[in-house]
Structure formats: C-alpha cells, structure tokens
C-alpha cells in the first residue's frame, strides 16, 4: 500500500541524508521525497511517499522517529488529506499540435509559462494521477522534458501536524 508520510525535522546539514540513508540501509522504498524549510526556518517539512505492508510502514515510522533530527512523523494516508504535486513540462508545439496542446492544457487547468516558436512549457499542479493523465494525453514524441516535484501533502480540516 502507498503511504504519504509527513515529517518535521531540524533544518540542519545532514538531516536529509539521515532520512535517505535510513531508507537505503534498511531496504525501504522511496517513491518521492520533497523537503523545504517551514515558516520557522530552523524546521524543515518533508513529504515522503513510500509503499509497503502495514508492518513495514510501522517500521519505517518507528525508524524515522528514532532519528535524532526528526521532530515528528505522521502518516497522512491514515486520515483525510490533500496531496499535490507540481510539474513543469516542455513539449513540442508546432502546427496543429500547438492548438491541441493549448486545449489540453486548459482542460487540465495548467498554465503555459514559457512560449517559443516551437515549444510550450506548461506548469501544472494536482495529484500524481492527474499529472500522469496529462502526460498520457500527449503524444510521447512531443514531450521534450518533464520535471516533477514529488508529492507534498497536508491533512484536511483543522488538524495540523
């Protein structure tokens, strides 16, 4: 099962490598990982997407909590939450394709943020599935590059980490 873990950790050199090192040393999966400082610059927030059986997720959570730099860990997937990912995608946009891409972009509510004679660069946020669907709707040959941020997540309602 896929899980989205949200972590608060000390914003210190090496904290990220402790987390990633833990995953490689113990053979846990990382699907994606994003991290940036919070409103308190001494604390970073990390969203980590992983997968595994309940037992494995329990071990992952325990081991993350054990890291001396980690302040808090919650499993967002245990309750209602929102997840979003940012994608920047550069595509060939010539001739009839140009109009088609613009139309698709509107349907998916992306934004074209850079334009040349032959390309569009689209900015899009959404769930991973939505971004996958957008990529799927394009002709593979037209895609020049894709940059995805990995998932960021937050719980719904008044609950905070």
């Amino acid at each position, binding site marked *: 099962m896929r899980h989205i873990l949200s972590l608060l*950790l*000390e914003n210190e*050199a*090496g904290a990220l*490598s*402790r987390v990633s*090192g833990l995953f490689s*040393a113990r053979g846990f999966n990382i699907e994606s990982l994003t991290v940036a400082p919070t409103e308190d610059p001494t604390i970073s927030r990390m969203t980590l997407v992983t997968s595994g059986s309940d*037992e494995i997720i*329990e*071990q992952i959570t*325990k*081991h993350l*909590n*054990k890291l*001396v*730099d*980690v*302040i808090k860990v919650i499993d967002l997937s245990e309750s209602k939450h929102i997840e979003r990912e940012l994608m920047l995608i550069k595509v060939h946009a010539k001739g009839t394709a140009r109009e088609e891409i613009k139309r698709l972009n509107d349907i998916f509510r992306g934004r074209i943020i850079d334009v040349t004679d032959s390309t569009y660069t689209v900015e899009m946020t959404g769930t991973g599935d939505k971004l996958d669907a957008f990529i799927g709707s394009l002709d593979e040959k037209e895609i020049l590059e894709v940059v995805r941020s990995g998932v960021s997540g937050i719980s719904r309602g008044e609950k905070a980490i």
Partner: protein
Amino acid sequence: MGKSKEILRGAEIFIRSLKDEGVKHLFGYPGGAVLHIYDELYKQTDIEHILVRHEQGAAHAADGYARATGKPGVVLVTSGPGVTNTVTGIATAYMDSIPLVVFSGQVPTKLIGNDAFQEVDAVGITRPCVKHNFLVKDVKELASTIKKAFYVAMSGRPGPVLVDIPKDVTADSCEYEYPETVDMRSYRPVVKGHPGQIRRAAELILSANKPMIYSGGGVILSEASEELIEFTRYLGYPITNTLMGLGGYPATDKQFIGMLGMHGTYEANMAMHHCDVLIAIGARFDDRVTGDLEKFCPYAKIIHIDVDPSSISKNVPVDIPIVGDVKHVLKDLNAILRDHKSKPDAAAIKPWWDQIKEWQGIDCLKYDRKSKIIKPQYVVEKLYELTKGDAYVTSDVGQHQMWAAQFYKFDKPRRWINSGGLGTMGFGLPAAMGVKKAFPDAIVACITGEASLVMCIQELSTCLQYGLPVKIINLNNRYMGMVRQWQEFFYAGRYSHSYMDALPDFVKLAESFGHVVMLVDKTSDVEGALKEALAMKDKLVLMDFITDQTENVYPMIASGKGQHEMHLSPERELA
C-alpha cells in the same frame, strides 16, 4: 567556578567540557587535526589520556570501559585515517548499543570539501553506524554540542555518537559555558512504560502455564538486574539470557536455564519453543536467537519490553508491546504483580518445570573432561572456578567466545564483555584493556583465539605503557575454529583458508612486548598455570593453551532451523 564566563580557545573548551562532563579517561591517538587539543591535554592532569597503538583499539578500549562501568567511553582521534580506523569499533558499539563519544579532528572548515590532506567525510562515513553525529562548524557551538553528544549517547537506547571538530574550531575562541541540561525538541526518549499495557502484561504473565522469561542486553544497559531478579524470583518462572544479557540474571541461580540461541542450552531453546507466554525483556529477537522465524515460539503469546519502539515487532509480531526503559517498566510491573489479587501458582507450573528438568537431564554441555589434549571448555571452567565467577571476561569472536559464554557462569551484570551484534574479531584485548583501566584491582581476563588475538595484538604495547595487567587466555587451536566448524558441517570438510599456516610464536611475541608468557599443552598443567598467572597481579600474562584442534561448539541450531531442532555432539544425536 562553574559558570564563570572566561574566553577560551576551542581546544581549551574541549578539555574543560570533558572535565565538566566528568570524563576521567580518554582513549586516543594524535595527528595533525587534533594537535591543538593534544597540546591542551599536555597541560593538565585531570583527564588521563591512554595512547593506543591503533585507533580501532581506542574505540574497543573505550567500549570495554563503557560496558564494564556503565559510563560513556570517550575516544579522540585525528582526521582521515584516524577516524576511518575507528569505524569498526564504532559499528561494534552501535550494534550492542554501547554509549561511546568519539571525537575526530577534521581539516579546517575552509578546506572541507577540498580533498585536503587527511580529509574524509567523517560524518558521512559513520552515519549508518552511529546513534547520531555532529560536525561542529563554530567554536560557539562546541561546548553545547559536546553536552548533547554525551546526552544522546547515554539516554534512551544508548549508542555511539561522533563529534567531528575542524582544526580551526579548536584554535578559535569564545566565552565558555558548559550547559547544565539539554533539551532537544527532536529527541525525547521514552522512560516510563504505558500503565495500561503493563497491567495487561501482568494479567497474561499470571495466567501462564508454561512461562518463559527471555532477557537481553537491555537489562544490563538499564541497570535493571535487581528488578529482573525480583520479578523472576517472585514468579518462580524459568529464565534464559541472550549472549548480550549474560549476568543480567545470576547464572548459578536455579531458575536460570542457560543461554539461548544458536549455541544456547538445549533446555533454554526447548523451553522457548514450547512456552505459552514469552516475556521478552530488553532483548531484540536477533536471528542468532530465533533461528527460523516461521518456527519461532509457535505456542506463545509474547510480551516485549524495550526502550526502542523499532525493536518491537521488527522480526516477531508481539501481543503486548511495552515501550520504556526496562528498569522503570520492571519496577512498575513488580509493584502491580505484588498488589494483584492472583498470586503466582507454583503448582500450576510444576509440570512445566518437570519438563524443563527432563531437558536439563540431557546435559547438553557435556564434553570429555578426561581428555589429555586440552579441551577449551576445560580451560574456561577452570578459570571460572579459580576466579569464583567474579572476573571481568572479555572475548573475541569464534568458538572460544561461545565456550566462554557457555562455561563461565556470570552472576553479575557488566562482567561479560563481548561483541555480540557485529561479531568483531580483535575486540577482546583492547576491550580488556579498557576494563582494566576502569577497574585496576579486578581480574580481567580476555578469552580469545589465536586468529582473533592477532587482529589487535599491537595493544600489548599499550598495556605495558599504562600498566594494564590483563590475563590473555589464548585458546589456540591453530584454526579459525568457528569457520572450520562450519566448513566441516556445511562444506564437506573443505577447509578453505581457515587454517593458520604461519602462526607467530606467541611466547616470543609477548616477550618482545615485555610481558609474561606461558605455553600450556597438557590438561594436567591447566589449573596450575592459571593459578600462577592469576597470582601475578601486576603482570600481563599471555597464556597460550594448545587446545584440541577438532573440538566443535555444541549444542548447535543450524541456520534455517527452529529452536527445537538442535544438534548435540555427533555421538549424542537426539531422536
């Protein structure tokens, strides 16, 4: 004076911080990056620095010191090769949860990342084998980081902590103040166990018909021996200890049924297999204990007390987990048991004890006591008798380690000092040295094998310099015995590279280091030689016992087998 705000240089702050932390001994080896610190060491006498002969020896010595005293072991080494040499020692301490604080020099901050002379990413290299590590980038953070390092090493589940200090930080100055307390928002280890869980555990414990107590190194680390004894005696239940837990419960007590695991006793492993309630205390279900997990304790409900939540349900699913310091949890549990309306029922568990006594009747540790060729077990047994079970015994890794664990009966915690988790050959001698430094008047014996001994043999020189008269019991079988045993059993006797073809003459070797040596090759000489060696209180004696080359460690659970599938010796296979 405590809080006077003097301006000090980093190197002085380092020394002052250690003093304020109460450090008395420092195991180390100098080099360029730590020369400012060594200069300050020279100017003072409160902290004794023990100059080892290889940095691995420093880490093991500090580790032995920590295991014997319960205080943190402290190490100081230079950058680059100095710190890489300590990695085996740090990993050894990490696997056994031993509190070490290792200080490594680093190249000056402005050179970090430049491939400077003797630069190595110490924090990166040690990260997977430390509890935590720090790089100090500013002298203003030095004292507080040292304080944190000791706190993290000692609290919760203990472990090694490395502090990497660039040379310029030891030259810069700032106001000195050693913090009195530490508060880390990201690190707050649990101490007390959950009362509801403890109550549930008490119910289950009292309902058992075939109970079994399985306790490990956590009991020793949390100084919970007394509480464990109270718990076990009150209940009248059988108890086994892990390799790391020996001495946590007195081995000569009638409720103790021996060590468990791969080379544990028949009765302990059988009782594990057949019990209906298993009470695991400060033990971590290591694979050398459980054997095949599919077959582990098939009939038992399991209670697990441990300070580290990640140890719980890691290998074996647990019915009642209790996270907390073993000492605190046992105290609470003992109180609840005493107040409980039901009392332990000796009659109800009598059939269980009868069964255990039957297993004990097999005498699984039997060996040929009449042999003229020295049996290694005999040497350990004699050492036990002559030291009345009161010595500190360190060991290396191999057959000798298992015989030491099987035949030296430890009645007290912190007396048995071995590398259980990492299994580090070369640990024994430097560890013994560390123990002797802590307890100069105690008998400290290192039970070793000739292959392990040479891995840190250089420390004989340290022992001479600092007057550390440990007794080295070299069970010399001219083989890497444990490797040979596996090759005999599982590789049809193809002894690939397990034979020591060009052993040193241990007599000349130890003499050249300035120590006393005894060569013993007859069973009838063993006792006399041991007596003589023990009488030489101020001499390091290396005793080279020429032992039976073919002796194997029994009983044995082969990898992949269950705890009830033990082998005794070939002549005595069980039906």
